[in-house]
C-alpha cells in the first residue's frame, strides 16, 4: 500500500507538486520510490534553470535503474535540495518531506495534475 497525502497534487509519471507560498515544491511519490528501490544518486538542475511541464528536469538512479524526473509544472528552478544530492536515501526515507527534490517558481498552473483521490485510483488500477 502506498501513502498518498491529500495536501498536494500528482502527475501520472509519479511526481508530486505542493504549493508552498509562491513556489512549488516537487518530489517523487512513495509509490515511485518503492518501485525504484534503494536510490543511490539524484541529479538535479541548478537554480535558474527553465523547466517545462512534462519534460525531464533531472534523474534519479537506484540499484535497479536510472529514471528521468518529469517536471509537473513549467517555470524556473528556485532551489534544489542539496541534502538529497548528498544523501540520496532521503528519497526512500521521506519522499513527501525531507526527500523533496526542487522548488519551482511557476510560470504555468498546476492544472492537468491529479488530486490525491485520482492518483490513488491510478495506483489501484496499475
Amino acid at each position, binding site marked *: 500500500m502506498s501513502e498518498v497525502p491529500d495536501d498536494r497534487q500528482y502527475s501520472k509519471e509519479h511526481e508530486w507538486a505542493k504549493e508552498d507560498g509562491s513556489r512549488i515544491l516537487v518530489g517523487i511519490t512513495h509509490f515511485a520510490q518503492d*518501485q525504484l*528501490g*534503494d*536510490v*543511490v*544518486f539524484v541529479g538535479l538542475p541548478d537554480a535558474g534553470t527553465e523547466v517545462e511541464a512534462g519534460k525531464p528536469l533531472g534523474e534519479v*538512479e*537506484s*540499484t*535497479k*535503474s536510472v529514471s528521468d524526473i518529469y517536471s509537473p509544472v513549467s517555470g524556473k528552478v528556485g532551489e534544489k535540495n542539496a541534502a538529497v544530492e548528498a544523501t*540520496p*536515501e532521503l528519497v526512500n526515507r521521506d519522499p513527501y518531506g525531507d526527500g523533496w527534490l526542487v522548488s519551482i517558481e511557476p510560470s504555468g498552473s498546476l492544472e492537468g495534475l491529479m488530486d490525491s483521490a485520482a492518483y490513488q485510483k491510478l495506483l489501484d488500477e496499475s
Partner: protein
Amino acid sequence: MSTLERSAGTRIPEGETFPLIFERSREGRRAWSLPEVGVDAPSLDELIPADQRRAAPPRLPEVSELDLVRHYTRLSQRNWAIDVGAYPLGSCTMKYNPKVAEDAAAMPGFSRLHPMADDDLAQGALELLGTLEKALCNATGMARLTLQPAAGAQGELTGLLIMRAHHKKQKSERRRVIIPDSAHGTNPASVSLAGWKAEEVRSDDRGLVDLEALEKALDDDVAGIMLTNPNTLGLFERDIVEIGRMVHEIGGLLYYDGANFNSIVGLCRPGDMGFDIVHMNLHKTFATPHGGGGPGSGPLAVSDRLEKFLPKPVLSWDEGAERWFWDDDRPDSIGRIHSFFGNFGINVRAYTYLRSLGPEGLKSVAEHAVLNANYLRVLISEAFPTAYPGTCMHEFVATAKPLKKFGVKGMDVAKRLIDLGYHPPTVYFPLVVEEALMVEPTETESKETIDGLAAALNQIAHEAETDPDLLHNAPVTTPSRRPNEAEAARHLKVRWTPE
C-alpha cells in the same frame, strides 16, 4: 547432489577470509630464480636515462609460484562459469564455449603470429579472417564487414559513426536516433557517444514497436533507428518490413543490434529485413568466451551503399597476385577503431565454431534456442507469468510480481536460485516489465538441466509463500553473501591501500 555438497565441492571452508594477493606478500619471496649473468651487462644509466626511471620500485606482491597458483585457483573456484553449471542470464546468450575452438586458437600458426608480420607471412591467418567475414556476411545478408570492434557496444559506436558519415556525405544534418523502449540498454549510450540525441518510442500492448508512435517520431531530423529483432522482450518484431519502409522513406537508416541474433541465425537475415547496419556479438551467437572478461568481438556489417565508410584497413583479395592484403586506400573510411585487426584469437574461435557447425548446424542452433526457451517458459508460467502473451523466441521476460504479496521481490528469487545451484536470470531489465526476470536458457542446455532449473524456480515460488525469509537471506551457500548494493553504489570503494 545437495546444495551443501555442491558448495563443499569447491572446498571453501565456511567463514574463510580471502586475502588479496598483496596481503599474501612476504618480503623477498620470489616465484622465479635466474642464473648469474655470464656476460658484461651495460649499466642501467646507459640503457635508461636516470630522469626517466622511477625513484622507488613499484609495490608488487612478492609470492612463491605455489602461492600464486593457489591464490588464483581458489579465486576461480569462487566464481560461477558456464563450465560449472547453467547460466540463463537473459540477453547474454551464455552458451557452452566448445573446447575445439580453444585448440584451434592455440595452434602456433595463430597464437605465435606477430601482429606486425608482413602480409606475405600471414596469408593463412588473413584467409581465415577473409573466410570468416564472408560467412558472417552470408549469415546476416550484408555486403561487407569489419572485424575490428572489440565488443557489441564498440560495434554500435562504429555503426553510428558510419551512419553519421553517410548523412554527412548526403549533406543532410540530422540530430536524433529513434530507440524503442524495449531496446538494448547500450543503444542510448552509444547514440550519446556518437553525438546524437536518443529518442524513445514506446512499445504497444503486444510488446512490439508502436507504429503510430513511430510515425509521429519520424521526420527529416531522424538519422535512423536502432532495433534488435527479436526485441529485448524476446518477441519478433512482426512489422519489421513496414518499420524499414517508414524509416527509409524519411532518409533514415536501420541499425540492427545483434544481441539477440542467436534466435534467428541460419533462419532469417537482418539484411533481408531491410537493415543497413548490423553488429554481431561473436561472444554470444558464435560461442566465444564470455563472462569474466572475454575479450569480446563485435563485427560490424553494412549494406553495399555504406561499404566505403567501413573502418580501414579493409581485408582484400588481390586476384592477380593471388594474395590477401590490407587495403588502406579508403578515402571515405571513418578510420581505425581498434589497434591491429580486432581480437584475432576470438575471431579464430568463432571461425572454428562456424566451420564445425556448418549451415545446417547453425540453423539448429536457433531452433533449439527457441525450443528450450519456450519449454522453460511454459514450465514456470504458473508461478512466473510472462509480461506479454504468446510464443517467445530465444528468451522470455517473466515477472515475479505475483510474489510481491508475500514481500518477495525479483532480486530475492535471483539470489535464492544461486543456493539451488543455478546462475540467476537477468533481473529488473527491461524496464517496461515490473519485477522482470529475463531468462535465456540457450540451446546448449539439456532437457534435464532445464527441468532442474524449472523445478528450482517453482520451488522458490512455493518458498516465497511458506518461508519468505529464506529468500530474503539468500544466498547462504556462497563464499560471499548478499552485498548491500545501495551502500556499495553510494560509497563505492574499488581501491585497496596498504595500512
